[in-house]
């Protein structure tokens, strides 16, 4: 491949006091790909997400984001979370973090925040540009809700949604920021089998539309069926990478998961 990967992480290291949570980790995601990051509990997967999204400042390492189609490489090092999102990395959270006292539609509208501009003046005077912008926000948000199948819930409070729908809303909200790369942190956690199947369809659908996705997931069946490539972590280190087929046969992976079911 000649094109640059969308996300290129190299040598990412994160220390908490004396504990090395991430150890010189390399990872890349290409345009249109679904990449999975797996590993036993406490391997440092969520820490990895927190580092690349600017919630933690990594001890060492480089994070590069390249817009597809020959855009300029952007360094994400040292950016604040909101700047990272603006540059094109959007995430969901392992323990759902919706704006629970806002409606479902408003939750998605918040995602449009970084792609819109209206400020105090616009808010008070509602000039034409602001009105058009608001209309745009509303239309895009509604379209995204339709895509994830939550349009019927648009005026419900987010906290009143069933669990699976809340996870979908998190995805919808992240999509609203128009990310170059979508980061999903255990999207299937706590879902029943039916909801998981629905989620699988949703992720595939989003991916078909050209969205690059990096996901952390424990559900091996889901990971194997979705991913183009898989990275495996243990104790903050990358222990393997490859296609689902390669990973399934990798002895290091089997060893790391020993005692845990590799169900695929």
């Amino acid at each position: 491949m000649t094109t640059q990967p969308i996300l290129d992480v190299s040598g990412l290291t994160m220390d908490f006091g004396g504990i090395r949570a991430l150890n010189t980790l390399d990872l890349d995601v290409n345009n249109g790909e679904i990449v999975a990051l797996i590993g036993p509990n406490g391997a440092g997967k969520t820490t990895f997400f927190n580092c690349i999204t600017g919630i933690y400042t990594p001890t060492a390492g480089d994070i590069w984001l390249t817009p597809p189609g020959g855009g300029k490489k952007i360094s994400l090092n040292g950016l604040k979370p909101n700047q990272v999102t603006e540059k094109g990395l959007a995430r969901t959270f392992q323990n759902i973090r919706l704006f629970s006292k806002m409606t479902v539609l408003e939750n998605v509208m918040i995602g449009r925040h970084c792609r819109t501009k209206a400020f105090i003046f616009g808010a008070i005077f509602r000039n034409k540009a602001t009105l058009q912008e608001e209309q745009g926000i509303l239309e895009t948000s509604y379209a995204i809700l339709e895509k994830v199948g939550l349009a019927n819930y648009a005026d419900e409070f987010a906290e009143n949604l069933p669990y699976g729908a809340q996870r979908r809303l998190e995805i919808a909200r992240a999509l609203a920021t128009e990310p170059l790369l979508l980061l999903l942190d255990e999207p299937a956690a706590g879902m029943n089998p039916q909801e998981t199947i629905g989620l699988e369809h949703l992720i595939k659908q989003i991916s078909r539309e050209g969205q690059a996705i990096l996901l952390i997931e424990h559900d091996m069946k889901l990971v194997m069926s979705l991913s183009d490539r898989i990275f495996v972590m243990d104790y903050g280190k990358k222990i393997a990478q490859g296609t689902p087929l390669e990973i399934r046969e990798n002895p290091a992976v089997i060893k790391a998961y020993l005692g845990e079911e590799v169900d695929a």
Partner: protein
Amino acid sequence: MDYFIELLFSGLTRGSIYALIALGYTMVYGIIGLINFAHGEIYMIGAFTAFIVATVLSIYGFPLIAIVIIAGIAAVVWSSSYGYTIEKIAYKPLRHAPRLSPLISAIGMSIFLQNYVLLAQTSDFLPFPRLIPDFPFMEPIAHIVGSTDLVILVTTVIVMVALTFIIKFTLIGKAMRATSQDRTMATLVGINVNRVISATFIIGSGLAAIGGLLIASHIGQINFYIGFLAGIKAFTAAVLGGIGSIPGAVLGSLILGLTESFATGYVSSDYEDVFAFSLLVLILIFKPSGLLGKATNQKV
């Protein structure tokens, strides 16, 4: 030189009083993560109870030693009861509410108690009876260190030792430490968290009452509003030392007391309170974890 020593002792005395109040803040914060805004009022009520009881007894002609003991006990008993009751009314129902709710409730409680004392008693400054006589053996250095200062320092040291003992060695102390580290875990190992929280409020309030009694006899007058300023300053001290940390509260209090004393002694007394507030603002901005506190990371 004498002036320096005088200021030093006056600073230590102030610091000791702040420490007695600051401990209540820090213990409560350590256990339930709440800034108990009404704590200053507990201290004020302690001082008022002591004032009322001592004056009544002296009018009825009790001997000084009996007055001191009875007034002291009354102050501690009533302040602790207030602390216990306030927790039950204003904080316990809000244990799972958003973080700011108990704080607003605490502010309301503080305003309520101030005005309750104002209405039931008076808004005037009341002369506090002299409970501590001038000890003859202090005569030669009385112009530098008063007898009251001595009593305050000694009492504070005794109280600190007792508190350390309670927290280190008694069952309830161990339960407190466990609860402050992880409340859920403490519940799981069978600690009655509600009782621990009540105990924390009772102990903290008792300490504040002792502080109230001592400062009132030191300054010689009280009114319903003394709790606000003392509360803020003690809170400053607790934050300076690192809120949640008991040695931190003592250290912070002594530092605050000494700096205040030297600043007013050598610079100017006009801006004494401005100084305390500025210190508070500066610490919270630049080192919110304080001198001995642990920085906490929010879990994502």
